[in-house]
């Protein structure tokens, strides 16, 4: 591992100069404990909260009237619900990639962004999880998906990718939650010891569970954390693979392809890093933590985005090639329909957002200037949403028989629920940065030169 404080090859350091164990602790814990709630936070949270109310209203109306209020029909039975599900769950993947895979790869720069990236994962998976439930039609019977002994003498069908999906997503949420919480324990102990307010002391104290930083505890803690990272790594790759099976196991032209798993995983990480940047850029500015989330983090994330974006581009090329090369008339038509059919403008927008525009990241300026990077990330998020829209809607709306062709138009309720989940995600992030340390304090301490000295002894 290179010395993270060293400026090598002219790139920004992982952590600004002049910090000590004490000042790092004070700076991050003061954001939660002593800094007054800013007007900006109140306005931001207020707006997100209003959007959550729109979401609740839309869900309430959905429960009252059923999925008929959406634009879904036959042939397009999946519509926005599945588009948004795949989009959100993909966004979550960057959090696990940062916290688990980069830990195993000893990328110490991850230490300052893993905490809020993991929180982002949790909230994104929570938003994702809503959609299949709402799409059930009878959401109050969702527990039929789980294998439990019941009086109906029935069991779930374990040969169905939809059942695999239930297990993959619920395992992913559970493991992400415990991983995030385990990471928080030492920092909660720090907050418990720093808090002046009695209620804060009690709440943080209970959550910290009496953590006292014993060397024996740290030893077991590090082992458990490393093993969890090792377990989460194949998990995160499996989750989007299983999500892609929802499509790839089906026979619909445009879905039935073997490239889906790797290309879905790459796309997930692509959109996930875009969301990390969309969150990190304003957070580091408004909370003045540019010394912890430095240009180096922005640049590294931009490079991951560029690399995964190219894998996604390869996926598109291969998809098109196989559609042609298969010689299958339905597959051929799927490609033709994407390029010339009624949704063609969306497909061209997708190619522009996901493949053309992100190529500016080859230029260093776009990787290091926050505003440009923010805009490119928004573009990638839009592009990845369009990708899921194309995969779900364009494939379904014209399949084998002309007589069963149709069109899909989202209704205002589709939009209300989609935008509502964005509000829910934002509101949860606002609460998170206000009440929990958004940067891992104890992992930042290990990046200081004083902490590195022990190893060189």
């Amino acid at each position, binding site marked *: 591992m290179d010395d993270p404080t060293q400026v090598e090859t002219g790139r920004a350091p992982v952590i600004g100069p002049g910090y000590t164990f004490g000042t790092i602790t004070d700076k991050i814990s003061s954001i939660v404990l002593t800094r007054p709630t800013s007007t900006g936070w109140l306005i931001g949270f207020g707006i997100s909260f209003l959007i959550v109310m729109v979401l609740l209203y839309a869900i309430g109306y959905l429960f009252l009237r059923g999925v008929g209020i959406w634009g879904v029909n036959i042939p397009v039975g999946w519509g926005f619900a599945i588009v948004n599900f795949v989009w959100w769950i993909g966004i979550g993947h960057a959090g696990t990639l940062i916290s688990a895979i980069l830990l195993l790869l000893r990328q110490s720069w991850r230490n300052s962004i893993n905490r809020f990236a993991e929180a982002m994962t949790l909230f994104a998976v929570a938003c994702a999880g809503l959609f299949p439930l709402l799409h059930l039609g009878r959401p109050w019977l969702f527990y039929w998906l789980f294998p439990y002994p019941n009086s109906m003498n029935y069991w779930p069908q*374990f040969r169905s990718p939809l059942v695999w999906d239930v297990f993959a997503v619920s395992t992913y949420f559970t493991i992400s939650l415990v991983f995030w*919480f385990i990471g928080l324990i030492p920092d909660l102990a720090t907050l418990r010891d720093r808090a002046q307010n009695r209620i804060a002391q009690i709440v943080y104290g209970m959550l910290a569970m009496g953590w006292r930083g014993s060397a024996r505890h740290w030893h*077991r803690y590090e082992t458990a954390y490393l093993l969890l990272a090792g377990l989460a790594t194949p998990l995160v790759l499996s989750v989007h693979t299983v999500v892609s099976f929802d499509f790839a196991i089906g026979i619909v032209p445009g879905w039935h392809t073997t490239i889906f798993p790797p290309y879905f995983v790459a796309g997930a990480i692509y959109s996930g890093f875009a969301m990390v940047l969309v969150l990190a850029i304003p957070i580091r500015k408004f909370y003045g933590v540019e010394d912890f989330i430095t240009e180096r983090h922005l640049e590294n994330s931009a490079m991951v985005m560029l690399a995964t974006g190219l894998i996604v581009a390869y996926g598109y090329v291969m998809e098109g090639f196989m559609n042609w090369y298969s010689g299958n008339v339905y597959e051929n038509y799927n490609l033709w329909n994407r390029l010339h059919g009624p949704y063609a403008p969306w497909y061209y927008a997708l190619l522009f957002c996901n493949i053309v525009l992100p190529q500016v990241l080859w230029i260093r300026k776009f990787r290091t200037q926050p505003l440009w990077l923010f805009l490119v990330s928004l573009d990638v998020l839009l592009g990845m949403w369009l990708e899921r829209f194309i995969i779900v809607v364009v494939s379904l709306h014209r399949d084998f028989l002309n007589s069963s062709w149709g069109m899909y138009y989202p209704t205002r309720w589709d939009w209300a629920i989609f935008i509502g989940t964005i509000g829910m995600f934002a509101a949860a992030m606002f609460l998170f940065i206000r009440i929990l340390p958004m940067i891992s304090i104890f992992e930042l301490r290990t990046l200081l030169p004083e902490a590195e000295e022990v190893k060189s002894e």
Partner: protein
Amino acid sequence: MKRARIYGLMAEFDTPVEIVKAARVTYEAGYKKIDAYTPFPIEELAEAIGFHKNGVPLVVLVGGLLGCSGGFLLQWWIATISYPINVGGRPFNSWPAFIPVTFEMTILFAGLAAVFGMLALNGLPMPHHPVFNVPRFAFASKDRFFLIIFSSDPNYNAVRTRAFLETLAPRSISEVPD
């Protein structure tokens, strides 16, 4: 009033290098019942206090094996015994289709075993512990490093142990009441 029992003697250090050195010297001086408290993990410190192996990996292995076998057996039992469905004459035990859920169950059980196993072996949650009686201990979660020699150590002696700790040049020494 009876005088409070002493849980141990605690020395405070400023840097990770100092505490690792102090822990090594203490362990070599014959004190085996010792512990150290730091604001972040220091690998060398666990070794310095003579703590080499921990039970977490075994717990995770057992959790993973349970999840794997339990997940597969559940699906196998459902598909072949409890609720067999004939799909075009294909075998009931269509094991390749059971791999994704078996895999997810392995990860789920192993992951939960890692978390709860680690907490249980650490004896957490434990809201109160004698070391919290020392006011300066609040800095153990910030920027100070503490070494404790427990009074249960056979070599422990209130006077001699304090004199020994003083030779390590700590920032402060405190008695930890039980």
